[in-house]
C-alpha cells in the first residue's frame, strides 16, 4: 500500500491524482496526504506538474462537470487531511460521470460532498449577509470573515449584481480583497488595511435600515432561537442591523 505526498496546493492535488490514477494498478489501495517536510516523513513525493493538472482538469470537466464544482467548493473549505477521500471521489467521478454525486452511500463520496456543500451553503448565505457601506469617494466597501475562502465566487456574484457601482470586498481574516472598478474585477492581497472615511449620508441610510429591521418583526412572534439558527451569531459582526444594540 503506497503512501503519496503532494505540496498542498489545489494544482498539486490534481496532478497527484492524475498521476496515481494513470500509474497505480489499484488506486483504492493507496493514500494521499500533504507533505509536511519533516525529516522522517514516509511516502513518495509527487512534484506538481501543471500541465498534467490542467489536462486532468479538462478531462474531468468533460466526464463529470458537477464533480468540478464539488472540487472547486472543496478547495474553498481549506480542509486538510481529506486528500485520500478526494482521490477516491475523483476516481469514481472519472468512472461514473456526473452521477457520482448521487453515490452518497459511498463513504468517500459522502464525505467530500458534505464538506463541499458546506462551502456552497456559506457562499449562498454570504450573498445575502454581506453589507456594503458607502465611502466618501462614492465607492462601496464590504468586510467579512467567512469560514471558507469564498471571496472569488462571491465577487463574481456581485459583479453581475452591482455593475454600475464601484466596490471592494475585504476578507479580514485572510487579508484578501476583491475590487470592482469601472466594470473589471481584480483580486489581491491587502498588506495593511486602513479604514476609509464613510460618505455623509451613510449613517442616515443605516438608520433607515435598522428602523426597517426593527419594525418588520412581528412582536407576538418573537423567536430569537430561530433567528440565530438561520443567521448564526458569527456573522453578526459586520451586519449593519446588528450594530449598536
Amino acid at each position, binding site marked *: 500500500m503506497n503512501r503519496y505526498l503532494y505540496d498542498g496546493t489545489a494544482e498539486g492535488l490534481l496532478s497527484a491524482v492524475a498521476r496515481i490514477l494513470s500509474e497505480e494498478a489499484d488506486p483504492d489501495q493507496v493514500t494521499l496526504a500533504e507533505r509536511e517536510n519533516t525529516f522522517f516523513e514516509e511516502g513518495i513525493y509527487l512534484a506538481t506538474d501543471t500541465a498534467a493538472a490542467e489536462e486532468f482538469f479538462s478531462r474531468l470537466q468533460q466526464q463529470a462537470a458537477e464533480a468540478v464544482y464539488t472540487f472547486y467548493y472543496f478547495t474553498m473549505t481549506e480542509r486538510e487531511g481529506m486528500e485520500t477521500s478526494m482521490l477516491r471521489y475523483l476516481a469514481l467521478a472519472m468512472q461514473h460521470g456526473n452521477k457520482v454525486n448521487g*453515490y452518497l452511500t459511498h463513504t468517500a463520496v459522502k464525505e467530500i460532498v458534505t464538506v463541499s456543500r458546506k462551502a456552497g451553503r456559506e457562499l449562498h448565505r454570504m450573498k445575502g449577509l454581506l453589507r456594503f457601506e458607502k465611502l466618501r469617494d462614492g465607492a462601496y466597501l464590504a468586510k467579512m470573515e467567512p469560514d471558507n475562502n469564498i471571496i472569488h465566487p462571491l465577487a463574481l456574484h456581485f459583479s453581475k449584481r452591482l455593475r454600475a457601482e464601484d466596490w471592494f470586498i475585504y476578507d479580514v481574516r485572510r487579508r484578501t480583497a476583491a475590487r470592482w472598478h469601472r466594470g473589471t474585477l481584480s483580486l489581491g492581497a491587502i498588506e495593511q488595511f486602513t479604514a476609509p472615511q464613510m460618505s455623509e449620508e451613510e449613517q442616515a441610510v443605516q438608520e433607515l435600515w435598522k428602523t426597517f429591521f426593527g419594525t418588520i418583526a412581528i412582536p407576538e412572534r418573537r423567536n430569537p432561537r430561530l433567528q440565530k439558527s438561520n443567521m448564526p451569531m458569527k456573522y453578526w459582526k459586520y451586519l449593519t442591523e446588528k450594530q449598536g444594540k
Partner: protein
Amino acid sequence: METLAKLQILSGAARYDASCASSGCRREGNPYSTGNTSQSGICHSWSDDGRCISLLKILLSNDCIYDCAYCVNRTSNPVERASFEAREVVELTMEFYRRNYIEGLFLSSAVMKSPDQTMERMVSVVEMLRTEERFGGYIHLKIIPGSSPELVRRAGFYADRISVNIELPSQESLKRLAPQKEKHSILEPMTLIGRQIGENLVERRSSRKAPKFAPAGQSTQMIVGASPESDFQILRLSQGLYRKMNLKRVYYSAFVPVNQDNRLPVLAAPPLLREHRLYQADWLLRFYGFTAEEILSDDMPNLDESFDPKTAWALRHPEFYPVEINRADYATLLRVPGIGVTSARRIIAARRFSVITPEGLKKIGVVMKRAKYFITCSGRPFEKQGRSALLLRNRFLLGDGSGAQFGESPKQLVLPGLFI
C-alpha cells in the same frame, strides 16, 4: 413627515403580510444597471421573529378608506397615518439594494382615495425603478382589488410577481369582515393575470424579445383563523387556485388579533400551529402528489394537531406499507414519513450504484426515527411491521420522543370556531 418616521409606520403596517418570497425567476443585469435576480432566492437577514427578510416590504400608504374588521389600518382605527411619495420609495429601494440589504421591493398599500388612484401611484414607483434607475432587482407588487385592468397589465410588465390577496377563504366571510371588498373585485384581476401570464408565455416562445409579464408568477394570501372555515375548505380552495388559476404560491397567515371587534374570534394566541400544518399540507399538494381529498374529508375537516399531515395519512393507510426502499418508485417513496423530496431523489440516484443498505439510508439523510416503521430494505423490515395504528400513534407521541414538536406548548392555542 420625515422618511424615517414614514418608514416606521409603513413597514410596521406591512409586517403581517406573510409572503416574502423572492425566488422563481432569473434576470441578468445589463451592463449599466444595478441589480439582477437569482433563481433560488436570497435571504438577506432574519428578523427577531426568525423570518427571512429578503425584500423591502412596505405599504405605500396606510391611510385607508376601507374598514376590514381584521386590519390595523382600517379607517375606524385611531392609528397614525402616513403615505410615501413615489420618489421616496424609489430612493429607499435603491439605497438599500446598493448596500445589499435587500433583494428588491415588495410594495403593497391601503386604499387611499380609490383603488385606481392607489394603484396608479404604485405602478409609477415600479415604472421609475425600472426605467429611470434601470433597476434589475426583484419586485413584487400587490394589486389593489378593484383596480382597472389597464393598471393591472402595466403592473405585470414591470413586476416579477404580482398578487391579489384572497384575504378570506369564503365569500360569506369576506362579506362579513371586509364588506367593501367584493369577491369579483378579487377574482377578476386574478383571472386576468392568469390569462395574461399564459398568453405571455406563448408570445415569448415565438419571440424571445417579447417583454415578460410577471415572470415569477402570481401568488395570493389568506388569513387563517379570523373566520370559521375548516382546513378542508381552505385546502380545497388552494387546490383549485393551483389547478385552475395556475398560481405559484398560496400563503397562509395566522390571524393576529389587532382590533376589538365582535365579528372576530377571541384567540389566546395567533394560530401558528394551524398555519404551520396548512403549509405542510400545501407542500403535499404541490410537491408530493397528494390531493386535498386525500388529506382531509367532510368527516375529518381539520388537520391533526399532533401529526404532520403526511404522517397522519400514513397512520390511516397501513395497507400502503411497508415500502421497499430498493424497488419503490419516486411517488411511492414520497409517501413514507421521514423521506422528503431530497431523500427520495437521493435514494433513486444511489440505487444506480448499488443496493441500499440500512447504513446507506442513514448516509442519505433519511429520518430513520420516523421512516423505520414504514419501510423494508431488501425485504428486511426495521421494526415489527403491521403494528396497529393506535400503537404507532402513541409511540410517535410519547414512545421514542419523535412525536410532533412545535414550539414549547402547542396546546395553549385556542382554535377558531369559538365565536362570541
